[in-house]
């Protein structure tokens, strides 16, 4: 007999698979438990600045220093954070780009890994060690500026990467400028101020705080007003529009031609 009876096996054929699954579950569960306890202790973040800085220091040590170094000096795995300021931390952590999930062309936006208080604590800690751009105040973010001026500045400084309607666009080697629709005014402001990742810095000498407010006004205007030209097709320009007309426009022409030349039954 080519086939042995099942009882001859000491172990069930699926035993190895089950064992690996149990091992993985233990490791993953243990890791999740450990990390949640590490962040759970920060839930009592105080509102006072010094305790916030202390809280931020703990969070930084637990979550950031592997790559960014004990004293923010940076390592081969991550850049120095000296001088990046609170605005940079608030942008990177607040939009979920940091902590980095995987190595890749650029850090992807994902659900934030920290609460607002924890993000604030991290920002306070980083800002306490070296000067840098601060988180914009609420009155800098009111989208009630001059949309016309904002539009002109956006077209000169931003549109080549982010698209004239802020729909985003491709860069080199897998990087891209993200879609700006629906992005919080605070993060737009912080991105201009700090130049996250490959975006250039647009400091207050280049684009003044009033100009930044105008640009935000323009973006919010675009977002809140439908395009006067009808369907935007994602505002992606000739690619999306060409695809649409090739499929639906020429498709309709072909269908009409078939109908015109077919004999009636």
């Amino acid at each position, binding site marked *: 007999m080519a086939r042995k009876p099942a009882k001859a096996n000491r172990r069930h054929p699926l035993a190895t698979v089950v064992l690996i699954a149990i091992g993985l579950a233990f490791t993953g569960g243990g890791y999740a438990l450990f990390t949640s306890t590490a962040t759970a202790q920060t839930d009592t973040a105080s509102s006072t600045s010094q305790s916030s800085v202390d809280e931020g220091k703990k969070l930084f040590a637990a979550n950031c220093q592997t790559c960014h170094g004990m004293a923010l000096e940076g390592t081969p795995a991550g850049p120095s954070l000296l001088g990046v300021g609170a605005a940079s931390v608030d942008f990177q952590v607040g939009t979920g780009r940091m902590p980095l999930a995987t190595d890749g062309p650029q850090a992807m936006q994902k659900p934030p890994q920290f609460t607002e208080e924890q993000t604030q604590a991290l920002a306070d800690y980083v800002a306490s060690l070296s000067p840098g751009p601060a988180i914009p105040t609420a009155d800098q973010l009111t989208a009630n500026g001059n949309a016309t001026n904002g539009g002109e500045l956006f077209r000169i400084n931003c549109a080549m990467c982010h698209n004239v309607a802020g729909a985003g666009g491709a860069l*080199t080697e897998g990087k891209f400028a993200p879609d700006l629709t629906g992005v919080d005014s605070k993060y737009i402001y912080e991105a201009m101020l700090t130049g996250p990742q490959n975006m250039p810095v647009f400091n207050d000498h280049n684009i003044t705080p009033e100009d930044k407010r105008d640009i935000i006004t323009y973006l919010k205007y675009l977002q809140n007003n439908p395009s006067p030209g009808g369907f935007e097709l994602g505002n992606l320009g000739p690619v999306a529009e060409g695809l649409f007309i090739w499929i639906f426009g020429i498709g309709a022409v072909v269908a009409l031609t078939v109908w015109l030349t077919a004999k009636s039954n």
Partner: protein
Amino acid sequence: MAHDASSGKDTAATSSGLDVGSVGTAIEPSTVGHAEADGGLAVITTDTFTNPGLPPTRMRATDLDPKKARNAQRAVYTLFYLSIAGSIFALAAYMAFPISDDLNSIRLNTVFLGLGITLALMGIGLGAVHWAKTLMSDEEGEDIRHPVRSNDATRTAAVQIFDEANKESGFGRRTLIRNSLIGALVAFPLPAVILFRGLAPEYNNPAALLETTMWKTGTRLTLDPSGLPVKASDVTIGSAFHIIPEGLNDVPDRLEQKAKAAVLLMRVNVADLTISPGRETWNYDGIVAYSKICTHVGCPVALFEQQTHHLLCPCHQSTFDVNNECAVIFGPAKRPLPQLPITVDGEGYLIAQSDFTQPVGPSFWERS
């Protein structure tokens, strides 16, 4: 029957010629059966077939069933009525959704006016085609082409008219008048040649215009579009400033000048720069200025990646390395972007040391 009356005789001729060898020659003296045809070298097809004529007319459902014909008729006039409704809808939409200062009103106006006009035209078009396909007779028939040549009497009369006109006007006889008229007609279009030439640039040498820009020694670098000068201390590492020459907003040919003189100013770590001999003083503490006009076909190259120091052209993905004097590292561009030599003046503002040392933008015929 439309086919040539002699073709039947051709068939008869070949079928009577039983000599197999003679079939392939195709050209044979017409000895058999070609009584009225010219006996020249006619090509005789040996394998003609008889014209099968038109296939029998296929009856459509609407031809056979009067109920279906009535339905088709209803569909056609419904489409035409729909077209009328569409036209009225378009008229109403024009009045109901006027274009105001609000941009959204343009959208409503266009959409509803367009829908109405589409319905009006599509109704007529679809109705007409449906009418033709289902109700109009589709029996196929033949119309024999009539000869184009007029009969001899008409032709003679036409020649007489021309002769008479020539005689009465003296066009053929009074050659001085005729020749001067021809001369006048030849001379008449000449002013147009000058006028059309006047539409072209009046400069004698367009190449000279392409070789220089507005930048001169000491011209301040100013922000686009405000025209405010830029201090070297304002340009932090990783910054990208969109720069125009000082005074650009005041010149009458602003856009023409901007198209040549636009500059992208960036600051990178000075230690990262690779500088070739002769360019040591062209940057100021890591602040570099490069022409924004792509050397491929002249798109504005401004997609600066501050970490990789790549400068990407959005049109055809030419990529330039800012650290390495904007050398081409990818894409169809053939030359690096020209660098603008810069320094600072006594007040700390960035100024140009000179114009670009080579023509900016894409190649042109006279470019050395």
